[in-house]
């Protein structure tokens, strides 16, 4: 028992049962007392009524008629009343063998043939000729009724108590089992098994909802951890190559001829390698920062029309100078919720790619268009495109299609775009431009108070319904 009470679930169930039992006890006692009072009242009313009948008889025909009436009523089989007519002290008539009580209601005891005596309730009333009339009714039946009620009530009470205890045990056990599932899962996770999840009951009740949100939280933590683990291993793996090159350059500089020009050349190459490592590092860190969802806190309403215009304007001279005709078409008022610099960087990465991975003469076109339920930015070119089989792979971290990485890319550009789109609740698609590649960024619409929140990732804090667009520059 003390072990049961150590459990909050059982304690709760038992407390509830105890409270219910107490309430039933109070209710039962109340009913019992009220019923008793009502029955006594009824008895007194019956006595008064009977007395009325008799006094009326007396008023009409005097004592002889009264005695007749009493006689008649005593012989009637359904009559429970007993009578006595007193002269002054002396009983004149009637089957109630008692001494004259005081006037009004009183308790009387009368002898019974097969028992010693019986209790009755009596009403005595004086008559005008100095005699007095006593009408009484046996209270033994009433006592029996009282006792029956009491017994029934006690049986009921004990049954309820027993059911309550059984119910408490069942309820407590149920609560405890459901909480134990959470505890066991938490324990397993604490012990290192991150794949464990709480078994759902499928009932959609509060416990099931708690289980669901805990599982969702665990999924999110696991994906963040997985992400972190992936990044650490990527970093460990992909930094090795440029670090080896850096080391090689320095070593070559040291072991080569001690001429200033040779040294200078080696140092310059080492510096180049170093900067390449740093830019790789910066890219990894910003992807990690985006994926962690930290940037979501600073999201605000941004006008894609203005932003895409700015980036196109920034890139137009460089693209044209490289011999790639560049054009763009925008629609006004494309307001979405987001981080302007992240979206600009995503756009920049796409245009950097378009420049780096297409031959001279390739046409590049940027379109901002309204899409169903949002806005899309399409960066299209008529260059060599990407094989369908490679389109999904190329979005992953450190994947570059030209094996030698001769263009100096780290294979992180599209991954950053993908992470950016994910955190904006949108998506990145690579498609066939027949010929060439078309990369599409789709953003959910940001109309104030629209159903945007359903489309945004779970970590998105609720945003105020403002349609305030801050100028970019």
């Amino acid at each position, binding site marked *: 028992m003390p072990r049961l009470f150590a459990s909050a679930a059982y304690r709760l169930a038992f407390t509830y049962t105890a409270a219910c039992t107490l309430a039933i006890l109070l209710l039962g006692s109340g009913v019992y007392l009220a019923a008793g009072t009502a029955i006594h009242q009824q008895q007194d009313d019956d006595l008064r009524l009977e007395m009325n009948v008799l006094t009326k008889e007396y008023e009409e025909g005097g004592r002889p008629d009264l005695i007749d009436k009493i006689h008649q009523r005593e012989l009637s089989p359904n009559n429970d009343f007993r009578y006595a007519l007193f002269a002054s002290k002396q009983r004149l008539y009637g089957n109630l063998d008692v001494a004259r009580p005081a006037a009004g209601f009183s308790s009387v005891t009368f002898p019974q043939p097969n028992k010693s005596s019986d209790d009755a309730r009596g009403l005595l009333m004086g008559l005008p000729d100095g005699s007095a009339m006593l009408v009484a009714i046996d209270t033994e039946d009433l006592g029996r009724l009282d006792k029956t009620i009491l017994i029934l009530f006690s049986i009921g009470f004990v049954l309820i108590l027993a059911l309550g205890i059984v119910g408490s045990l069942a309820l407590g056990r149920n609560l405890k089992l459901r909480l134990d599932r959470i505890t066991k899962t938490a324990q397993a996770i604490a012990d290192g098994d991150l794949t464990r999840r709480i078994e759902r009951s499928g009932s959609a009740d509060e416990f099931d909802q708690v289980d669901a949100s805990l599982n969702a939280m665990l999924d999110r933590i696991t994906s963040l951890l997985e992400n972190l683990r992936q990044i650490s291993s990527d970093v460990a793996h992909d930094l090795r190559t440029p670090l080896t090159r850096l080391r090689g350059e320095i070593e070559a500089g040291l072991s080569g001829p001690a001429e200033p020009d040779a040294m200078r050349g080696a140092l310059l190459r080492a510096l180049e390698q170093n900067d390449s490592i740093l830019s790789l590092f910066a890219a990894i*860190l910003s992807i990690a920062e985006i994926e962690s969802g930290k940037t979501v806190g600073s999201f605000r309403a941004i006008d894609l029309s203005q932003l895409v215009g700015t980036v196109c*304007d920034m890139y137009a*001279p*460089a693209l044209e100078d490289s011999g790639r005709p560049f054009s763009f078409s925008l629609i006004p008022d494309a307001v979405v919720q987001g*981080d302007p610099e992240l979206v600009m960087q995503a756009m*920049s990465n796409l245009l*950097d790619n378009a420049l*780096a991975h297409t031959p001279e003469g390739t046409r590049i076109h940027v379109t901002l268009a309204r899409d169903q339920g949002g806005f899309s930015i399409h960066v299209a070119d008529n260059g060599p495109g990407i094989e369908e089989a490679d389109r999904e792979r190329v979005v992953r971290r450190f994947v570059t299609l030209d094996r030698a990485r001769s263009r*100096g890319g780290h294979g992180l550009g599209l991954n950053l775009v993908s992470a950016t789109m994910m955190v904006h609740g949108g998506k990145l698609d690579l498609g066939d431009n027949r010929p060439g590649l078309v990369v599409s960024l789709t953003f959910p619409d940001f109309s104030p108070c629209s159903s945007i929140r359903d489309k945004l990732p779970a970590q998105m804090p609720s945003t105020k319904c403002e349609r305030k667009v801050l100028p970019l*520059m």
Partner: protein
Amino acid sequence: MAHDDRDTALNQAGIQALDILVVEDDLRTREIIRAGLTDNGHRVRLAESGSQALHVAAESEFDVAILDRMLPDINGLEVLGELRRRGTRTPILLLSALGSVNDRVSGLDSGADDYLVKPFAMVELLARVGALHRRPPLGAVPTRIMIRDIEVDMLGRQVWRRGQALPLHPREFDLLVLLARNAGRPVTRKMFLEQVWRIHYDPTTNVVESHISRLRSKLRQGFDDDPIETIQNVGYRMRTCA
């Protein structure tokens, strides 16, 4: 005396010698920054902790302060706050290993005038220091700049060379203003990206170079000299004299 000779030489090249406070706890980094600054003619006072920085700043005046964000005793942001509370108006450049947007915003909010993420190139630091010192105090921004024969009207966003109006694209105008404000001193690619486009990432495409080349050809149209000078691996500089 050595200083005086140097100052004259540098002043002729259009570079002004500045008194700079450098607060950095790492000995090697401190020495590298000191060497870089003194090689360019600046006078440097060093501090290796927040408390020392506050002490040094209280007893001397500086043209520019370079403050590391992470210091062993009092962190850089607190030092910055304390200096601003004391009413110091010295331009302060915050150096930090923390490069995220939030970190940058918190740094600038604390009263820093510029923010440079470690690791940085020395030329970048030198260019920033020069730009910071010359930055006009708030409310005193000139509405018209005259560099050689080029006149820039900041309010009307118009440019004339020898009285001849030049049709500049808005972005080209912004680039020219940044160059003109720093006339005689280099402006780095990063500074253009941060101040003209307000971006803090580094596009691999030569966006700055292409815009400058357009600005340059418009400025040169019909003239035989180029007012913009390319500084290899650094950026661009506007020449102050022909």
